[in-house]
């Protein structure tokens, strides 16, 4: 079943609200999809399911999921206390032409300029079909978040530029980190070594740290100040 692309951000949000609270199996049934029993062999299934349910067109990896609206869809698995289970994939990193890239025209910036976050409750032992979809949150980085992302991106790109891939691990970056993409960990791509010579290196991608996305959710749902009162737990 095909869902027409939303004509506006408001329509997209309304679709997200209508999905919220439903089980993954319910949404899959609407689309005649089968929910795999184990997502380790079907990574990204829930993301693709929700993209389809929301009417995302087929797109390219460097553009937002809803290009006409400039909105990227990000599903984010969270625990019942609102803590993200894992870091969030953003996009592949280009390792061979770092000198040509600018933050403003980068794929990371394009992807994170406006994100529709959809949390999915992911508890250990709960099969994928029984995971509950959360409320949508339309997020645009505020100035602080934007600055943090830009700083991390520049830092990471500088290291890529200088061929410091060997020393570049997931510990670098406060909001953004660079690490091999789980599903394609063995994939090799063009890069530059420390002497400036082209080499083949392990493909990597940009991820948002779970601590950063937790802050986004807390602020976006107005839970930050409530949580400090010790009277509200998400």
């Amino acid at each position, binding site marked *: 079943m095909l869902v027409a692309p939303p004509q506006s951000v408001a329509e997209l949000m309304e679709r997200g*609200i209508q999905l*919220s*609270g439903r089980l993954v199996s319910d949404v899959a049934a609407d689309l005649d999809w089968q929910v795999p029993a184990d997502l380790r062999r079907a990574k990204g299934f829930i993301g693709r399911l929700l993209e389809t349910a929301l009417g995302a067109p087929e797109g390219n990896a460097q553009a937002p999921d809803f290009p006409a609206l400039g909105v990227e869809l990000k599903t984010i698995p*969270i625990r*019942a206390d*609102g803590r993200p289970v894992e870091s969030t994939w953003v996009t592949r990193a280009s390792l061979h032409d770092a000198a040509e890239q600018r933050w403003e025209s980068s794929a990371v910036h394009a992807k994170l300029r406006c994100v529709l976050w959809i*949390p999915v*409750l992911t508890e250990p032992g709960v099969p994928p079909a029984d995971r*509950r979809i*959360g*409320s949508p949150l339309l997020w645009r980085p505020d100035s602080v978040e934007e600055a943090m992302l830009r700083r991390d991106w520049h830092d990471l790109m500088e290291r890529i530029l200088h061929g410091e891939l060997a020393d570049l691990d997931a510990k670098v970056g406060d909001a953004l980190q660079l690490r091999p993409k789980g599903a394609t960990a063995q994939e090799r791509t063009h890069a530059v070594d420390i002497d400036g010579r082209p080499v083949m290196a392990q493909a990597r991608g940009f991820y948002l740290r779970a601590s950063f996305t937790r802050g986004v*959710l807390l602020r976006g*749902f*107005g*839970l930050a*100040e*409530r949580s*400090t*009162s*010790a*009277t*509200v*737990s*998400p």
Partner: protein
Amino acid sequence: MVRPVNSSPTHGRIRQLDPAVANQIAAGEVVERPSSVVKELIENSLDAGATQITIRLQEGGRVGIQIIDDGHGMGPSDAHLAFARHATSKIVDADELMRIGTYGFRGEALASILSVARVVLCTRRADDELGVRLEGAGGCELTARAVSCPVGTDLRIDDLFFNVPARQKFLRTAATELGHIIRLIDAVALAHPGLRLELTQGGRRICLYPAVEGLAERAAAVFGDEVAPHLYGVTGAEDYAVDGQLSAPSTHRGSATGLIFLVDGRPVRDRTLQHAVVQAYGALLSSRRFPVGVLRLRCPPGTVDVNVHPAKTEVRFVSSQAVHRAVGRAVRGMLIDTPWVEREVVGERSAPYDLHTPSPASAPRAPRASVRRPSGVSNRTNSPPHATWRGGDAPRQPDRASTSPAALAPSSLGAAGLVPTATPRSYAPTPSPLIDDEFGVSAREVPAQTGWSGRMCDLRYVGQVGRRCLVFDDGDAMVLIDQHAAHERVLLDRFVAAFQTGGFPRQRMLIPRVVPLGPTASAALLAQPELTAPLGFELAPAGERAVMVRAFPDVLRLNQVDEEIRRLASLVLNGDKDGTADARDAGDEADAGDTTEAHDKTEARDEGETAAARLARAAATLACHAAVRAGEIVTAAWVDGLMPSLAGVDLAAYCPHGRPALSRLPLDDIGRLLDPS
């Protein structure tokens, strides 16, 4: 044509009644029971200019009633004529009926009484040397003779209904009939504070109301020590002049018998007046509770018809709407304008303080007659009246920035005991939104009130006591504010304001929550978005036996959401007053039984209670549950967020349930506690 079976061919069945029988029938409308006799005779005495009336009863008036007044009395011919039906000195033509200035006017009372009882009348005018004594029974001719008697009228009625046994059977016990008469005397006493009234039965005095100057004193005497300290003055001057003394919301009764209405000095029963008063109290009173007190209405000439019923206890207003409005505003004004609930500390302390409590002689309390005072003025002569308070008339200073919802979030927890403030602070009020409130009275229409908000501005926060009470210093007194009640009042105010602007601020759930309910409860709740949405709930179906909560009012804590949803479901299903029933059970029961019947019940309740009233009730309950509770520590910063909002709301002195939210203990009283000498 059908001919009656036993009709005589020569005489018709319809015949003119004997005048005595006709009088007895007519008497039934005027003389229903002893209290109606007393009422008619007191009205005659009042019309005769009496300043003192004594009522003596035997067995609640069943056996004997005697009314003695010091009015201007009657001459022999007038006295005779007074017992003729439709003979009166009070009106001449029908035009005068709409501008009656006397209590009686129908000319029926004495004729009716004479037709069903034994009557002895002694009366004398001041200019006459001798009075006249008339005696008669059962409507027969009166016998008259000259007698020596005081100026005024002394009328004795014995053996009421002696000649109408059927009527006599309907009389209740002496105690019941006495109760009716006492209520009547109370009403008359309230209508005429300058009148001396005495009631005795079998030689024993039941009550004595000495002449007093004002309604406040008389109301204190009538309603007694228990109620008197809680009465406040009501005034209103629109087309209809309104005044009275009504109880604080904390003093109420289960029936409206403690609520006395006087229209142009006449005690009446009137639904419009009662409705206006109860509606003005609104959520301050629980359902089926009524305030206590008296309300007097003075109508412009020609706007009220008192000739509705022979007993004259009912009136008809030309414009009930105008009357309702005038009364509602006056009562609401009183509720807004008398926020300070002063406690009698001295003399009311229990054991631990008894040693320091001054004896009544050393610390005399105001005599009862002086207990009542004009609205907002202390009854203690040694306590400064509100008018002298600093900042009492300070203009309201809007400060919206300080009233963000975040400012009202519950406290940072962790501190303990008394939480002092480093620097004195005052609180500029946030004006209450100018909206038509749930009582139908627009805040902008309420006359400007005296310095309630000004007083609030002058408060200096001292700290929290017992994790329950906020303590302030206003310079002349210690002010105690119940943290839960005050917060609850502010939250309710926000709810009411939010209803006008599209709904209460809501908190979207990160992961929508599924709340199990019975199928009927779920369906009923989902069918009521007009109730749930303005409160801040966003609900969706979640199977047949649950609802999904996507958003909830931002004042609630997450762990309260399930319970509140069940309460709302219970409210929708059962009209449950406090929403205490478990909707899951209620729904299950309804589903296990007759679902149709449950739906019918819901519909019936829907008809009985307007959506607005139910929403207001739900909001009040929600505000109560969301408010900070006793036992929670609040910080000075939290208090700083609360107070401007509290200063800006009406009725800040009461929680939405009508309980006092604050008390003011004057320094003089505190001083006497500390140093009785």
